[in-house]
């Protein structure tokens, strides 16, 4: 069993903590473990807190929020060595950090699974910050490596001019779980009725495809279909394990029941679009 890891990136004040507060409070049914730099602005309804220590807050819904201490990788190692793993690990990157430098560990470590990079940008401040001579390059870098870019503070129709990449307004998303975490097919169905903003797509059979062709095809999928996961038959023998989050496409030998499930935002992608993209693979 590997532990999915999602990294939340974004400059100081962009809204990372707001996102984390929402994730902690949301009814996604997952036992999240969230590693934060500090509890500063973490805001949890006191009635939900089951236990609290200097470096840990446990919630009655099974989620836990911890400070990461001086060494993030050490903290990740400690979590992996626990007897009972959480369902999903979320790491809040520091305001200047390159979130991919952290997320890469999920691609590297066999006991982790890549859950993506979600970068939050502030609609009011992004234009100024991204052109700042001191930090502009690093702020833009956080957006460049993101699998999903979320824009905060869009009230009154604000939108950053300098953001030339597909992004979603945080306020348009009623449930963050499916976007930020890996929600399995069954969990997703259970949750779906309450979250009309998502669509789910699935196939259960497929022709056998060469790895390089498959990677190329998956990379060309409709951009609104931001998560894909499952297993497809490989030519000759064997099975490809497939996992796509945003721009990240992973295809490697694996074992599991043939089929893929995908999640997209209803406002960004139509089912017919996904189906016709998938059909192309058969020709």
């Amino acid at each position, binding site marked *: 069993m590997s532990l999915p890891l999602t990294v939340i990136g974004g400059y100081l004040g962009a809204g990372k903590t707001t996102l984390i507060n929402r994730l902690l409070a949301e009814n996604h049914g997952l036992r999240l473990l969230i590693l934060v730099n500090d509890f500063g602005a973490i805001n949890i309804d006191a009635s939900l807190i089951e236990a609290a220590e200097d470096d840990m807050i446990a919630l009655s819904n099974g989620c836990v929020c911890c400070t990461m201490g001086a060494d993030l990788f050490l903290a990740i190692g400690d979590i992996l060595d626990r007897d009972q793993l959480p369902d999903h690990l979320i790491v809040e990157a520091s305001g200047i950090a390159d979130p991919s430098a952290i997320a*890469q560990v999920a691609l590297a470590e066999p006991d982790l699974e890549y859950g993506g990079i979600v970068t939050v940008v502030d609609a009011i401040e992004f234009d100024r910050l991204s052109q700042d001579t001191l930090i502009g390059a690093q702020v833009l870098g956080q957006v460049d490596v993101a699998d999903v870019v979320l824009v905060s503070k869009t009230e009154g129709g604000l939108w950053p001019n300098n953001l030339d990449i597909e992004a979603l307004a945080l306020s348009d998303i009623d449930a963050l779980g499916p976007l930020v975490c890996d929600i399995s097919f069954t969990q997703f169905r259970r949750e779906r009725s309450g979250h009309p903003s998502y669509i789910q797509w699935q196939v259960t059979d497929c022709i056998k495809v060469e790895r390089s062709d498959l990677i190329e095809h998956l990379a060309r999928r409709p951009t609104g279909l931001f998560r894909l996961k499952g297993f497809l038959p490989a030519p000759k023998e064997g099975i490809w394990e497939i996992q796509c989050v945003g721009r990240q496409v992973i295809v490697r*030998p694996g074992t599991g029941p043939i089929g893929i499930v995908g999640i997209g935002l209803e406002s960004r992608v139509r089912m017919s679009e996904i189906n016709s993209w998938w059909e192309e693979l058969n020709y």
Partner: protein
Amino acid sequence: MSNITVFAAKKFITMDPNTPEVTHVAVRDGRILALGGKECANEWGSVHHDDRLADTIVMPGLVEGHAHMMAGAVWKYAYVGYHDRIDPSGNLWRGLKDGSAVVAGLAEFADRLDFDEPIVGWGFDPIFLASERLSRIHLDEISSDRPIAIIFSNFHLMCVNSYALEMVGYDQHSNVEGVIKAPDGLPTGELQEMAAMFPIMRRLGIDFRGLSQSPDAILAYAQVAQRAGVTTITDLFSSMEDDDVDVMLRITNDNFPLRIVPVLGAMGDPVSFADKAERLAKRSTDKLRMGAVKLMTDGSIQGWTARVRWPGYLGGQPNGIWNTEPEMIYSLCAEMQARGIQMHIHVNGDQAAEVSLDAIQAALALNPGQGHRHVLQHCQMMDRDLYERAAELGCCVNIFSNHIWYFGDQHVALTLGEGRAARMDAARSALDAGLHIALHSDAPVTPLGPFFTAWCAVNRRTMSDRVLGSAQCLSVSEALYAITMGAAYTLKLDAEIGSISVGKRADFAILGDDPTSIDPMALKDVPVLGTVSGGRVHLL
């Protein structure tokens, strides 16, 4: 027996202008009671004479203002660096000058391990090797049935053998950025940055933190210090959890030959780090001094991650990275200054120094007051104007002089070019600006050895034996002052250590030669015979 001990030496070089040189020093309760001739303490009562140092030259215990605890315990791994180096037990490890020497050296080390133990090396630096890049193929020659990992000297890269790659499943399908692949699509064995190294480190039990906080690590640090004549040393980016402090308090007892100044790494919420620093300060003892904080700003010049001012890097590389947001540097400076907490601020590039000085200036405007002694650390590219500002703001500087020898040629050819390289680590400009200066090794990045560091500041030779920027050379006496009183000042310990003066701790470096009378080019070779810490003699 009398509780006053009078030590005799050929010469005590005191670093105290009132009595620059004496032959006898009297010690009571671990502190200096009197100094002068044989009878110097007779007015205090009966004395007993200790002649163990009679044939030696004695200086104040040397003070290393910028090093890391890991410098001791990292020796549990095989040293495979380019330069000769001495381990904590005093064994010389010859520098390995090419790839095949590295392989041979490791194979020899492996013979001494249990057959199933991982083989781990450290200190490797390809920047000095002309031969082809180290790969798994070289390491497979040593063993194909146990894991091998070579940690590079910057601790950001490693090279592993095929067995280790297999353990973590790195193969042609891996799409991890830091897993370097050959043109044939297979991993070369080189792994870059923590994310790619993590699975190996986890499985081989390589733990950088364990190298810093275990009892063995603390004891090994003391051994390394003792060999270098150092009696007070920093651990300049410590995480200092409560358990760590308990361990350190237990180890650093009266018999421990070293005073450690762990400095809390502060990256994040200023108030919580200030709170923690205050809590730590309250637990300080004579041998363990806590309460200061370390700020990170930029990266390193040779890694092209330092933030530099115009005209940038020689090869047009992008302008480095911030490890702390400039805004956060301002917030941290404001909070620490308001709370009276001393800061040590890492600044390699000149832009990082400029932003840090701006932040200190802003903090002082909010909470005026001198006596803070915030220290800019490394200061590699600071020029006259930045040093003048540091002086105006009441800061001190700790300069990374060892870089001149180790990386000076690379800075000329690859990073900064002749003009700026010639005024790197500009100790002369700093003194001329009226600053209190220290000089440092950043051990284990370069070896701990204040006499070598002083030699660098005096002679400014590079590895190719050229003089890099003679205008910035210090005199021997200025350099010796910097590695004693200067460094003590930057740690706010100058009332207690740094010179042999009445009232100060009886901390000495015991030497086999007189650094003030030898050829300045021999300064780096002054033999260290041991130390005295709080009046207790610790000969090697």
